[in-house]
């Protein structure tokens, strides 16, 4: 009925009646299933006693389809990766939609299919959600809000737990997602090869935990790039993090685009990388494990933690000089000066 009736999302689709039920069944449930869905307003999960990691996120990316991914994949991976930073095994996600009236049904179906693919890859269930439709102009195509729960496998992994001497691993190239999206959204440069790196890092993180690597902190750099995440950890843990600029992997096309636009690639978002702060004795082993997993092939040890100066991130350049890697100020803007 959904397909026959409208090729666009209508306000009725969010009105709580039969039209909405049809939408949910034919687009959402058909895609990523109703695992454990009883048709109730809450999903009830069976979990072993212990610690639960709980996170929430909103996704408003524009455009909603970009090279390398889309808002649906982003929603699942972003939430899953956040849960992983707490050393938890992602268990269940909620996915809620605010849809702009007039969005093409095809687009919504594609997003739902993408959510299914991502959830399946990440081995996580979508157990509940919500659907609202707002009048044309009140939202930009579609906004997605998620929440996620995970079972903590190892307590105490936190941005505040980095210790002097720890090594910092970055699981792959910096700045891919932000560059891909900026190029797709704005008329700045033409892009033939920069892809978003949006990906779930479940395999990598679970492998590290299983191997008993002494991971102290993890962060998946998103907006603000690795500069923001490193600063957050440095501040939370009251330590200094020193990065070797030459060790940070950057894809040539990403580097070129950032140079041309005057952007600092270290401040540009990722969506499929993890910063892992690990005990020095486990650093090499951890790197090997990450290398052996999908999405970790380009991992490098990019730096280490020192005691001082506290709450600071420093970077050693190719010339052996040092500069501060500061928290990004605000919106990423292309420069000509």
């Amino acid at each position, binding site marked *: 009925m959904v397909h026959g009736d409208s090729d666009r999302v209508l306000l009725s689709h969010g009105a709580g009646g039969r039209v909405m039920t049809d939408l949910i069944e034919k687009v959402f449930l058909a895609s990523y299933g109703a695992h454990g869905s009883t048709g109730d307003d809450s999903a009830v999960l069976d979990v072993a006693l212990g610690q639960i990691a709980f996170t929430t996120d909103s996704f408003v990316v524009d455009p909603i389809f970009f090279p390398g991914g889309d808002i649906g994949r982003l929603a699942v991976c972003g939430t899953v990766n956040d849960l992983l930073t707490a050393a938890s095994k992602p268990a269940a996600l909620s996915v809620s939609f605010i849809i702009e009236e007039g969005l093409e049904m095809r687009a919504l179906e594609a997003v739902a299919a993408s959510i299914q693919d991502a959830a399946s890859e990440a081995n996580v269930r979508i157990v509940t959600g919500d659907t609202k439709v707002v009048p044309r102009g009140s939202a930009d195509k579609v906004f997605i809000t998620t929440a996620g729960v995970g079972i903590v496998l190892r307590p105490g992994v936190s941005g505040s737990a980095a210790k002097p001497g720890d090594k910092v691993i970055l699981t792959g190239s910096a700045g891919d997602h932000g560059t891909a999206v900026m*190029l797709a959204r704005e008329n*700045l*440069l*033409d*892009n*033939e*090869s*920069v892809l978003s790196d949006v990906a779930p890092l479940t395999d990598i993180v679970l492998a590290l935990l299983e191997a008993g690597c002494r991971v102290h902190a993890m962060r998946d750099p998103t907006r603000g790039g690795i500069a923001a995440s490193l600063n957050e950890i440095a501040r939370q843990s009251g330590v200094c993090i020193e990065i070797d600029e030459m060790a940070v992997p950057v894809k*040539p*096309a990403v*580097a*070129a*685009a950032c*140079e*041309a636009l*005057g952007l600092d690639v270290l401040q540009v978002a990722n969506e499929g990388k993890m910063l892992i702060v690990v005990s020095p004795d486990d650093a090499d082993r951890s790197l090997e494990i990450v290398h052996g997993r999908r999405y970790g092939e380009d991992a490098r040890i990019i730096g280490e933690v020192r005691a001082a100066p506290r709450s600071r991130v420093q970077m050693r350049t190719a010339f052996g000089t040092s500069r501060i890697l500061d928290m990004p100020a605000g919106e990423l803007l292309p*420069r*000509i*000066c």
Partner: protein
Amino acid sequence: MCLAVPMRLTQIDGVLAVAEVSSVTRKVRIDLLPDLAVGDFVLIHAGLAISKIDEREAEETLALLKELTDEV
């Protein structure tokens, strides 16, 4: 000011051209520079080619610098 990036011309059509660096491309204008050919390297600023890179000059400078470096 000003940010300008060396890019290689891959297409030329009158005052319009396509410039490329590491597979990132941009339509640019080349009004300021006569006698450009596909394959030339130019400095691109705000969508305009402002100078053609003298490749021989660049290579000579680098060669000299490398020589001096090795002497140290």
